[in-house]
Structures are given as structure tokens and as C-alpha cells.
């Protein structure tokens, strides 16, 4: 029996393969829901009948974004960062064993979340607005969902611990005391040393930044690593808040389940809950997604252009500024909550959200200028997907800014604009394309060979881009005719043209994904991919 020995390359490949499988799961769910919204009728024996009952539909809609975000996006990010961060800072990963173990925790957690919907019909949606989960759904389903979510967040925290432990592990040759060395490193990496030096210069105070010693300041960490660290702060806060929401669900559900005691869930203020929940949840959407993607661009663009990143010093300030911005934008999810103080809706909901226009705008500018200055360029697959991803983010980010508007939100909130023009555009055309760019760039580094078929790679790219943009626009335009998100319209035909068009583009996306999958199997062989996880009998040489 033989299984691939655990190396950094194998670890990253494992994460990447699992991420791709979760993308397939999220995609299958997405297509089934698209079929329902297109008023189709069919049965997949033993699995599902379309149209589903509303209860079944919402139980599918609940894990769909969680599988997409935590299954596909997070695991693909883990795959890339577990290889790239140690490689770039030339240190071994702090714990290979932990990295391998929390992958399984992550998988079990996500499948548990998914099972709460599939088997027990938990359908509170990922927003879990208080007190919806504990009022409408079976207590056991709530418990299973909360436990699954906690496992996923535990895995995220393990990843962040492992990365930080790797980055901050002190080298033996460092002459400075540990705390001073750490402070100097972080200040140099975030560009704070320049700020402090300027401020001190203003007041004529010239104390050295490294704790008063005469030792030279350290080399700042690569800007990609700084972005990873910065995004990890948001991911940590997100994990803490979502786990907290799960604990709250358990607090109100377990007494009912165990001793039949019903507690009044409205002792918890729904508006305070909503503020805390969105503050935490937005750490993904407006925090680590954006900055981890930006970080990936800071790395990919120089590699593909074979020149240093344009405006690197500005980029370090952008990373720090984005930390402050991402902490203050959550109220754009509460623009239609009239009891939310007006000043909060205006400042946090609209004005601070525009901060992302600047941070992401400058990040894209840095990446694009890096490429522009390196012309002529070779349009390799990572390059194509990277540019496609920037287009996706520009379209999805622009629509997001329009809806995060004190005035306009009144006619857009909870319509198809939000999941169409904004969310699916950001996640499929934007985020996923950047992740595919990273995967196409990483595969040769991890395996020694890139994907075999250029034809299949190109099919993947064009189907994915056309499918992603087309589906997002088809859904988004239904807003004009008043179509709401998260709403079924049985017997209503007026939205069918939009929904049918979205289904066609959704199928195109699926074909793009299948082209990628076929290319993976064609290049490496199913046996090699399975052998990453399961010991297989050694085949006899012919």
C-alpha cells in the first residue's frame, strides 16, 4: 500500500483537491436551485425532485454560501498560503501535523452544517437573524448546525495560529530581545516605521524604533505575507463572532431539547445581535476576502510580470487602512433597519464603505500598473484568470457600492440585485477567478508540471467568465421588475426570462468547471489524486 508522503506540496495539493470538491458540491446545489427558479420539473432518483418543497429549497439555500465560502474559497486559500507563506519567508511550516488535522476538522464541520439542512431541514439561511433559528426550526437541526459551524471556525483558528506561529517564530541569530524584534518586524511590515519616524522627526525626538538599541531595523516581511497577516485578523474576529452566534443558538435550544424548557429568545435584542453578527460576518466579505485577494494580486502580478510590485510602499499603507475600513462598514447591511441610528447608517453604512473603493482601487491599480510596465506580456492561464478576476471584482464591487447607499438601498435591499450583480459577481467572476489564477500558477510549483491541455484550460476560462458574468447579470436585472432574493414565486411567470437565462449561464459555468476537472484528471490521473488521501495498492510494473 502506498500513500504520498506528507510534504508541504502534498499538504497544499490535498487542500486544493478538497476545495475543488466543495466547489462542485456548491455548484450542484446552485444548479438545482436555478432549476427550481426556472420552473423545471424532474427527479434525480433517491436524491431530489424538482420542484422542491419550500422547506427543502431553503434547507439547500442555507448551506450553499457556507459550502462555497468555507469549503471552496477558504480551503483554496489555505492550500495556497500553506505553501507560499513558508516558501516566501524561508521558514518551515510551524506544524504540518496541525495543518493536516484541521483539514479533516474543516471537512467534518462543513459536512455537519450541510447535513443539518439535507437531513433535518435546517433552513435559517446563513444570516441566521435572531431569533429565526430557534423559533422556526427543529431543535436538533439547530444543534447540528451550530456544532458544524463551530468545527469550521475551529479549523480557521488553527490555520491562523499555524501561519502566525510560522511567521513570528524567532530565528536564532536575531540579536534583539523577542518583543523588540517582533515589534520592529511588524512596524516595518505595515509601513508604520516610516510614519513613526516622521512624527518623531516633527517633534525633534529621534529615538530608535527597535527599542533604543543600535541594531538595524529588520527587513520588512514580503507585502503578500503582510496582507495574509492582516486578513487573518479579520478571519479571527469572524470566527469568534460566528462561534458566538452558534453558542447563543445552543443556549436557547439545548434546554428545550433536553428538558423541554422554552426560553424567550426575545430577551436577546435582535438589533444588537444583528449589529454584532454583521460586524463579524462582514470581516469575511469586506475584510479577509478583499485583502487576501489583494495580497494574492501583490504576489501574482510581480511573478507574472517578472518585475517588482508597483507602488509597494503605498500598498503597505493600503493594507493597514483596509484593517480600519473593514472594522467600520457593517452597517451597510442595516440600511433598511429604521431603528438603527441614522448616523450609523450614514457613516458606517455608506461613507466608510466607500473606503473600500480606495483600498481595493489602489490594490488593483498596483497590480495593473505592475503588468503594464512589464509589456509585452504573455497571456498565460494565471494571467487570464487574474485579469478576469479583476474585472469581476470591479463589476461586483461597483454594484456593491451602489447598494450600500443610504438612499438607493431603499429600493435595492433584498432584491435580486444583491445576489446577482453583487454576490455572485464577486464570488464567481471575482474571487473564484483569482483563486483559479493561483491554482494554475501553483500547480507547476507543487507537482513539477502544469495542466496538460491548453484547450481545456481555455474552455475553463471562457466558460467560467461568460457563465459567471452572464448569470450575475441575468439574476441582477430581475431587480428591475421587483424580484426579491430568497423568495419563491410559484405560478408567477414574469421572472422566468431572467431565471432561464441565469440557468443557461449557470450550465456554462458548470461546463467550465468540468473542463478544469477533466484537465486535472488527464494531467495527474485519478489514481494520483486519490492517492493524496488514501493508501492505494502499488501497481505492478508492466
Amino acid at each position, binding site marked *: 500500500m502506498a500513500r504520498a508522503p506528507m510534504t508541504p506540496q502534498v499538504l497544499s495539493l490535498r487542500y486544493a483537491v478538497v476545495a475543488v470538491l466543495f466547489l462542485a458540491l456548491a455548484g450542484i446545489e446552485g444548479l438545482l436551485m436555478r432549476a427550481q427558479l426556472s420552473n423545471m420539473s424532474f427527479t434525480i432518483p433517491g436524491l431530489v425532485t424538482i420542484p422542491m418543497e419550500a422547506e427543502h429549497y431553503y434547507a439547500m439555500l442555507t448551506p450553499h454560501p457556507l459550502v462555497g465560502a468555507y469549503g471552496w474559497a477558504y480551503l483554496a486559500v489555505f492550500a495556497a498560503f500553506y505553501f507560499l507563506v513558508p516558501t516566501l519567508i524561508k521558514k518551515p511550516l510551524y506544524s504540518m501535523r496541525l495543518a493536516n488535522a484541521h483539514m479533516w476538522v474543516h471537512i467534518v464541520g462543513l459536512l455537519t452544517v450541510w447535513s443539518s439542512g439535507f437531513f433535518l431541514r435546517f433552513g435559517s439561511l446563513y444570516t441566521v437573524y435572531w431569533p*429565526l433559528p430557534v423559533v422556526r426550526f427543529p431543535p436538533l437541526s439547530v444543534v447540528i448546525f451550530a456544532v458544524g459551524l463551530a468545527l469550521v471556525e475551529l479549523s480557521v483558528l488553527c490555520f491562523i495560529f499555524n501561519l502566525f506561529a510560522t511567521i513570528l517564530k524567532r530565528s536564532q541569530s536575531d540579536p534583539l530581545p523577542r518583543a523588540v524584534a517582533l515589534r520592529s518586524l511588524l512596524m516595518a511590515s505595515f509601513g508604520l516605521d516610516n510614519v513613526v519616524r516622521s512624527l518623531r522627526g516633527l517633534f525633534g525626538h529621534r529615538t530608535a524604533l527597535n527599542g533604543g538599541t543600535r541594531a538595524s531595523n529588520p527587513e520588512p516581511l514580503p507585502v503578500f505575507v503582510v496582507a495574509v497577516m492582516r486578513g487573518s485578523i479579520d478571519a479571527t474576529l469572524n470566527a469568534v463572532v460566528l462561534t458566538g452566534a452558534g453558542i447563543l443558538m445552543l443556549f436557547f435550544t439545548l434546554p428545550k431539547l433536553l428538558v423541554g424548557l422554552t426560553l424567550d429568545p426575545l430577551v436577546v435584542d435582535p438589533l444588537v445581535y444583528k449589529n454584532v453578527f454583521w460586524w463579524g460576518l462582514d470581516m469575511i466579505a469586506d475584510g479577509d476576502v478583499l485583502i487576501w485577494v489583494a495580497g494574492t494580486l501583490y504576489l501574482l502580478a510581480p511573478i507574472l510580470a517578472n518585475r517588482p510590485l508597483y507602488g509597494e510602499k503605498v500598498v503597505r499603507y493600503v493594507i493597514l487602512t483596509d484593517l480600519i475600513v473593514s472594522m467600520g462598514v457593517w452597517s451597510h447591511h442595516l440600511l*433598511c433597519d429604521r431603528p438603527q441610528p441614522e448616523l450609523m447608517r450614514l457613516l458606517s453604512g455608506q461613507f466608510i464603505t466607500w473606503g473600500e473603493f480606495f483600498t481595493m482601487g489602489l490594490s488593483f491599480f498596483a497590480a495593473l500598473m505592475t503588468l503594464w510596465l512589464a509589456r509585452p506580456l504573455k497571456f498565460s492561464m494565471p494571467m487570464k484568470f487574474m485579469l478576469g478576476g479583476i474585472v469581476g471584482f470591479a463589476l461586483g464591487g461597483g454594484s456593491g457600492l451602489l447598494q450600500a447607499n443610504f438612499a438607493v438601498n431603499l429600493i435595492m435591499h433584498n432584491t435580486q440585485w444583491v445576489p446577482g450583480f453583487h454576490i455572485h459577481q464577486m464570488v464567481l467572476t471575482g474571487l473564484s477567478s483569482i483563486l483559479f489564477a493561483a491554482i494554475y500558477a501553483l500547480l507547476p510549483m507543487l507537482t513539477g508540471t502544469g495542466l496538460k491541455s491548453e484547450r481545456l484550460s481555455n474552455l475553463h476560462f471562457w466558460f467560467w467568465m461568460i457563465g459567471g458574468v452572464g448569470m450575475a447579470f441575468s439574476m441582477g436585472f430581475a431587480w428591475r*421588475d421587483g424580484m426579491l432574493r430568497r423568495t419563491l414565486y410559484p405560478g408567477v411567470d414574469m421572472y422566468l426570462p431572467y431565471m432561464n437565462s441565469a440557468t443557461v449561464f449557470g450550465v456554462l459555468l458548470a461546463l467550465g468547471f468540468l473542463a478544469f476537472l477533466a484537465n486535472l484528471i488527464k494531467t495527474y490521473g485519478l489514481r494520483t489524486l486519490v492517492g493524496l488521501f488514501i493508501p492505494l495498492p502499488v501497481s505492478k510494473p508492466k
Partner: protein
Amino acid sequence: MVEIEKVEKRYLFLLIVIAVFINAVTISPLTPWQNWTFWSRPTPTSIFNISVCDYEFTLPSGGIQVRVGEPVKFVVTSCDVTYGFGVFQRSGRMLFQMQVLPNYSNEIVWIFDEPGLYTIRSTEYSGPDHPSMIVPDAIRVVP
């Protein structure tokens, strides 16, 4: 302090112009409903109290009739979970909406500019029966 190249400065200036322009236009009275929801804040001529409980809207017993051009206030409360309160034209187009949080008085003032019949629908998911939360022709707007 921050070394920034000329082309980067120009780009940043462009971003600032776009941001200021869009924010100024949308916050100004050029956006029709900003006139009364944010700037003039007129005293409503009528107040309609609506409650929502277990997926059902309960409307005022005398119905909801308003005049074109008159500011009216909708006060919506929920007894259990978060719902939405959306007002739609017969064509399906949404006029406005707000969230309906339990334990809170959720209020909005609106001025209708076209006579006709308007539908009320929950715009927030509140459980599997959410799609059924629709009251056709609930609001009559007269000239």
C-alpha cells in the same frame, strides 16, 4: 511621509472625484425620496399601524387609503421574528421597503406620486412560508 508617484496621485484624485460625486448626488434631494426621508421630514397626515405575527400581516381595520402627494407614515411591528415591509406597484416594481424587527417600532414616511393599488409583501426571509406573505392591493392611493 508616503512616497507616491505622480500617476498614482492622479489615479487617487480620480477615485476621490468619483466617490464625492456619487455620494453627493445620492445624498442630495436629487434622489426623489431623499427629499422627505432625509431633508424636509414633513409631518405625516396619516399614520397606519400594521402588525406581523406568524407569517401574517394584520392591516388597519379601515384599510389603507392615501392621497397622492401627502406624506403618510407606516408603523410596523413584529411579534416573533424579523420580517420585511415592502410596497410594490401592480407591475411588480418595488416602491420602497424596510426591515421589521421584533421588539421595535419600525417606521417609514412615504409620499406616493401615482394613484393606484399597491401590494404589500414581506421582503425579508422569515422561514419556509415567507413566499406566501403577500397582501395584494392592500394600499389604495387616490388623486
